[in-house]
């Protein structure tokens, strides 16, 4: 509760302007709601009763009554509009503030941070969690208004008649207590329900994501059973909530009615004895009517507050994620070709030491092939050079500058990495290549030429402006890969990292791509490769094994090493 208060206070302070207006509105509404009851009471005494008991009223009195009723309503309206509009404004602005902070952090964290974060949760943090963090702001102005209503109406009631006040004093705290008890009891099952909805969603998500597998292995029945189990758990949880609600909701209608009946019973006596006027009894009953609702509003606030805190905790978890270290002072890279140096680099994935004390140098303009068995750490090494991850020990330098000291903007203009698995944005082909920069079609086509992607892009119905589906599903594997390659070449990088970037293309196209690279790209290049042709393109070869570089030299020199020969000449042993 205290943390809820702190969160609210922080949000209110951040959005003080709109919030203040919302409170003014809520207060106006509260006051006018109570005034409305006074008006009705007075009208009963001054207009309705004279009309029947005293044989008529003046037109002026009637007009005044009508004006008072409408006037009170208009002021209430102004109050509601102010409260709702500016309340929303305060809440939404706060939401956007959280959103900006969360996404700023997403942009600032190191890549490895994303490893243990399920995609769905990352999305939820930026959207639903930001929204939920502010959800308690909504009932707050109203709750403040409600407190005013309660205080003012209790006072008014005290003026009307102490006996009627006594009924109210018995009834409303009772209502508040019931509300509180209900909230408390339903909290657990309600949370459990949400968890079960989450389970259903997780099963469905994974199942649809693996459709290909589900279909080819005929897992439909298994998946349906899996979903049914979760959905049934959800149903049972819902029934528990339903049982609680079945007791509470109708009770919430019944109790104030019972209170009003009590009021009427006692009031009739008081009225007959002349202790109160009819108008006062009517006013008291109308007051009861408007009092029943406010307790729910405060209830909402109390219900939302813990949820807001939980949501905000998740937002805070993102906000405390360590940022990538940005250089305090940057060192400019030298002009011309750059060398890449790995200096005693070690890297660990969880319990796995992937790279141990790796040292190597790629000379400016040199092409180095990186070979190694599956899972030997080639992709990890590429990520290190691209500064996507930082080594646990040792350092990586380009052009003599340690990566942490390079200017990020300059670094990205200088290096390009083609990932082993091509990632395409669900956007146009052009946007996927230019990545938002203004680039001439000529330049784009030149890059597509080298990547041997031009002909198929030209055959697409909308050419460069063809929109690609989620993860590029409508392209073949090789087509996706060639677009990623073109994306890198387009930037004319001085350091080019190709992580198995031709694995999905056929031998002829691969050959053509390699020729193109050899003739038109002058970058310092690291190529992860399995095929000898690619390896032969390289000036030098590094072999990774067991997290270390176990062989280094030209292809020919290395062929003398049995482990190297066994790896790269495997195809030659094939029977012809």
């Amino acid at each position, binding site marked *: 509760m205290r943390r809820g208060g702190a969160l609210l206070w922080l949000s209110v302070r951040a959005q003080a302007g709109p919030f203040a207006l919302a409170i003014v509105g809520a207060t106006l509404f509260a006051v006018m709601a109570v005034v409305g009851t006074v008006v009705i009471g007075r009208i009963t005494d001054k207009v*309705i009763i004279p*009309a*029947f008991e005293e044989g008529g009223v003046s037109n002026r009195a*009637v007009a005044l*009554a009508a004006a008072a*009723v409408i006037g009170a*309503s*208009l002021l209430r*309206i102004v109050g*509601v*509009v102010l409260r709702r509009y500016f309340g929303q404004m305060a809440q*939404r602005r706060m939401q956007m503030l959280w959103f900006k902070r969360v996404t700023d952090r997403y942009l600032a964290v190191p*890549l490895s941070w994303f*490893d243990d974060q399920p*995609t*769905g*949760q990352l*999305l939820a943090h930026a959207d639903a969690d930001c929204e939920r963090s502010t959800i308690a702001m909504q009932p707050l102005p109203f709750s403040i208004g409600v407190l005013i209503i309660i205080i003012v109406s209790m006072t008014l009631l005290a003026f009307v008649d102490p006996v009627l006040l006594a009924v109210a004093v018995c009834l409303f705290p009772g209502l508040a207590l019931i509300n509180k008890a209900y909230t408390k009891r339903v909290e657990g099952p309600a949370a459990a329900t*949400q968890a079960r909805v*989450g389970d*259903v969603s*997780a099963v469905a998500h994974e199942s*649809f994501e693996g459709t290909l597998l589900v*279909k*080819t292995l*005929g897992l439909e029945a298994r998946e*349906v059973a899996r*979903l049914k189990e979760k959905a*049934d758990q959800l149903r049972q949880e819902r029934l528990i909530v339903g*049982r609680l*609600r*079945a007791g509470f909701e*109708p009770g919430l209608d019944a109790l104030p009615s019972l209170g009003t*009946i009590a009021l*009427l019973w006692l009031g009739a006596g008081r009225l*007959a004895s002349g202790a109160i006027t009819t108008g006062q009894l009517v006013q008291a009953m109308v007051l009861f009517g408007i009092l029943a609702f406010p307790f729910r509003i405060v209830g909402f606030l109390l219900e939302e507050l813990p949820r807001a805190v939980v949501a905000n905790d998740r937002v805070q978890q993102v906000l405390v994620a360590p940022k990538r270290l940005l250089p305090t002072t940057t060192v400019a890279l030298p002009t011309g070709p750059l060398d890449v140096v790995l200096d005693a680099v070690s890297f660990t*994935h969880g319990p796995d030491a992937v790279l141990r004390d790796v040292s190597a140098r790629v000379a400016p303009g040199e092409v180095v092939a990186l070979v190694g068995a*599956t899972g030997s750490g080639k992709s990890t090494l590429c990520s290190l050079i691209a500064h*996507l991850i930082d080594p646990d020990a040792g350092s990586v330098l380009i052009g003599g500058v340690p990566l942490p000291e390079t200017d990020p*903007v300059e670094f*990205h*203009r200088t290096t390009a990495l083609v990932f082993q698995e091509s*990632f395409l*944005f*669900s956007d146009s082909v052009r946007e996927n290549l230019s990545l938002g920069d203004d680039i001439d079609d000529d330049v784009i086509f030149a890059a597509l030429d080298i990547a041997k992607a031009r002909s198929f892009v030209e055959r697409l*119905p909308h050419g460069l402006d063809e929109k690609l589906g*989620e993860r590029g599903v*409508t392209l073949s*594997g090789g087509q996706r890969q060639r677009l990623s390659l073109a994306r890198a070449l387009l930037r004319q990088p001085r350091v080019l990292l190709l992580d198995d970037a031709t*694995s*999905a293309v056929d031998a002829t196209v*691969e*050959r053509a791509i390699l020729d193109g690279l050899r003739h038109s790209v002058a970058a310092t290049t690291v190529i992860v490769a399995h*095929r*000898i*042709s*690619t390896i032969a393109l390289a000036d030098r070869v590094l072999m990774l094994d067991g997290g270390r570089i176990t062989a280094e030299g030209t292809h020919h020199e290395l062929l003398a090493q049995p482990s190297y020969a*066994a790896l790269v*000449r*495997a195809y030659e042993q094939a029977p012809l």
Partner: protein
Amino acid sequence: MSHPEEDLGELEELDAIVDVLVDSAPPGSHDQERRHSITSDEEDALSAAGAIAVLRRGLAATPELRQGVVLTLALAVATALGKLAVPILIQQILDRGVFGKDGYRPGFVAAACCGAAVGIIALYFISRATFLRLVRSAEASLLGLRVRTFHHIQRLSLADHVEQRRGALVARVTSDVETLAQFTEWGAVAWIVDTVLIVTTVAVMVVYSPPLAAVAVAVFLPLLPALGYLQRRQLAAYDELRTAVGGTLSEVSELVTGASVVQAYGLQRRTRRRLDRAARTQYKAQMGAAKWFAVMFPLSDFFGALALATVISVGALNGPAWGLDLGKLVAFVFLVNLLLGPIAELSEILDQTQTAIAGWRKILGVLATPIDVTEPENGITLPTGPLAVDFEDLRFTYRTGGEVLRGINLHLPAGAYVAVVGETGSGKTTIAKLLCRLADPTAGTLRVGGIDLRQVAPESRRSTVRMVPQDGFLFDTTIAENVRVGAPETSDAAIQSAFDSLGLGGWLEDVPGGLHAPVGERGGSLSVGERQLVALARAQLGNPGLLVLDEATSSVDPKTEQALSEALERLTAGRTVVNIAHRLSSAERADLVVVVDNGNVVETGTHAELVAAGGTYATLYSSWLGNTRVLRDD
């Protein structure tokens, strides 16, 4: 503050919310490939049909819900009666208990009050029981609907899946059903309670004084078109808001799923710009909706006040002449107030109703999507052992784009080891998909074991035809579980031996945790090659008569690949194997090589024959040789 499981649950629930929102992303971004999609044809037809039609079709699709309708009615009437009791009591007491001919009658007052109290308590218990029954029946029917929808989606063809955003499909079985649940348990009850309340309130008014009732109703009437107008504006505003939220989520989702590209290419500033733009649009849309939300309730309040003022003035001036008395006029004041409640509530739940109807419409849209790969009634069971495959003038076109397979005629003998090679984009993966009946040919036939694939019983096909897809998807669980999905009853020992028989025992030993190592979301904790190894082990289990490998070893190092190929060759004796690979090492050892070019089979024969023939394959092979051999003169 809360239990850990609870947090987790909420997180996942948020996922569900995100899914709906993502689902409502701007349609424009995909319209190029959406010509036939579920959302267009079926849903458009439904949306034109309007809310009533959705309701009718929905009830037809969910027969269990009809029982709920009766319960809802009962509940609504009970609640409405409870609410009406008070103003009637006021009138009775004022007119007959206090100001009546006999003056103050404490006995009557007490009796009336007790009677009313007993009635309200009785109604409380009735409401409670009915509500419970309602929840039970609603939940049962929603469970049925959810499972049926999920099952239907599972049966939709791959093409339908490709066209839909994943989030949209998930939303069908989560948030859409949730909105329905909400509606059946809140909205629908409120609708009926409010309508009953309005009708009965007006009826009571008429009983007290027909002319005054007419006046009150007349004042309220213009509220209807005004609310209708506001409602339309609000709906439009919400639509815009959903689009905006969808837009924001797409931006975030690209940032998150493409984080490596964003960081490798330094796209932070571009991403920030796009995020800011999306957030601004969303905020504007939110405030646009807030505007309508802010005036919705005050509008009813104003009409209520107007009605009250009119009733009081007219009642006070003409009441005596119309035969009204004090109690009735006071009761009228309460009745007008009583009308205000349901009217205000209706104006606010219209919104929830719209969401529910939209959700229901989407679910019905999915259920109405025809299954284009329909399973045969009495399917034929495929024989065990190796199966021959025959393509007869087979043609295939995806829903978008031109013809991909252009008349393929091909015979693959039973037990053969067939290599399919060809340029990227020539249609190899498409052939693999057709072999597993992920789609049916546009023209021509495909026979497996001599039987048209469309006639084969689904269970038989799935256990007999197995495919290892191009990108190895892994479930977020352990290595062992991922292998086991291929053959559910397999013991750990058998899984271990599957790895051993492929020569991967050594690799598995090196993985910390071995068989029980978690593989991460989509298999992300394994290297790309390692994921392929797991997928192969999975296909190795079971005993398919036709095994289709689509680039199943494209990311594995040559040495491991050679070892795997040898193992596979040994293990696949007694099966037909179709191996699609760019690495021609597989073609060298194949019984039959099939060369695909631009959707046609251009050459077939053994490796040696094709090399000798000097055609497309020979060229391809010489590139491959050049790419993989240490040239003699080196």
